């Protein structure tokens, strides 16, 4: 904000001095001399004064409170800006920043482990089903020992 304030102050001073110098051409020599003295004094004092004033102001807040940024944004030609951008280079820069192989590896690993988990649980279910059928065929009403808890 301070830097912007200084720029603003410089621009203000420069335009003010320009106006004063333009007016000097139409004045007589004595008055011109007086004007030059005033101008020299203004050259020395005004920039410092304006810079101090601007430094004490919150320009961002000033703009936020008094400028309709939406209206300004509507006037911006985004397409023209996009045309000036090297979008391919920008995309490559973004892709370089993302670890795509790691993301693909992680997601594929998740899918694989889910599939393997499903196969394992289905195999256990099938084991139980076969055990039940065999128990019934062999008239083992108590059920197979392997199907019951094995630990005390």
């Amino acid at each position: 904000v301070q830097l912007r304030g200084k720029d603003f102050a410089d621009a203000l001073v420069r335009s003010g001095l320009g106006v004063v110098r333009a007016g000097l051409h139409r004045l007589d020599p004595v008055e011109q001399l007086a004007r030059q003295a005033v101008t020299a004094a203004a050259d020395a004092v005004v920039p410092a004064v304006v810079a101090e004033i601007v430094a004490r102001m919150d320009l961002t807040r000033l703009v936020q409170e008094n400028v309709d940024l939406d209206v300004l944004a509507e006037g911006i030609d985004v397409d023209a800006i996009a045309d000036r951008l090297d979008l391919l280079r920008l995309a490559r820069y973004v892709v370089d920043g993302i670890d795509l192989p790691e993301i693909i590896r992680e997601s594929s690993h998740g899918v694989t482990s889910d599939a393997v988990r499903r196969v394992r649980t289905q195999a256990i279910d099938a084991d139980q089903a076969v055990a039940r059928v065999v128990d019934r065929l062999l008239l083992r009403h108590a059920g197979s020992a392997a199907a019951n808890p094995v630990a005390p």
Partner: protein
Amino acid sequence: VTATVRLVQPPVTAFQGRRAGVVTRTAVAVIDATVVLTAVLVAYGFAIAVIFLWSPRQFRIPSPRFFVFLLVAGGLLTLYLTVCWTITGRTYGDRVLAVRVVDRRGDVLSLGTASLRAIFCVLVPLGLFWTAINRHNRSLQDVLLRTSVIYDWDVASPQPISTSAGGEHGQADRAPTDVAPRALDAEHSD
């Protein structure tokens, strides 16, 4: 008392450390047989390529007798099973189906037991189906060598967690090395 146990998915905790059934074990056998068969075929292709490069003019595709093929495949399968059961207790098929081959104390098989079991499995593959009939889910090989194939889902959850023993799921939460010995001894005594 604090013990290190591993996180096992809830539906499987009830089966952790128990003997695997015939369907799971058949699936394991199919996967392992496929692995070895693929290895034999790759080796065969490699041999063909080497013979062709050695003398392209006299090249003829070697066609070994079926007996030789069976001998090579059987030998390779025996070696594969022996090495896997001795080192980790798991073949590739065991890893996929999350089971482990253990001895009567719940430990990894010794070299002698593993090689005997491997030879027996290759020579009498139908002995596997005794699992369906046996009350304790034990194949013919298991009965003779006092080995077991147990569910061991630790391969599915590599991150070990530390918690107090006998937690919410009690016995089923424990690692198979904790569960298997007592369980197996108890069953071998009948």
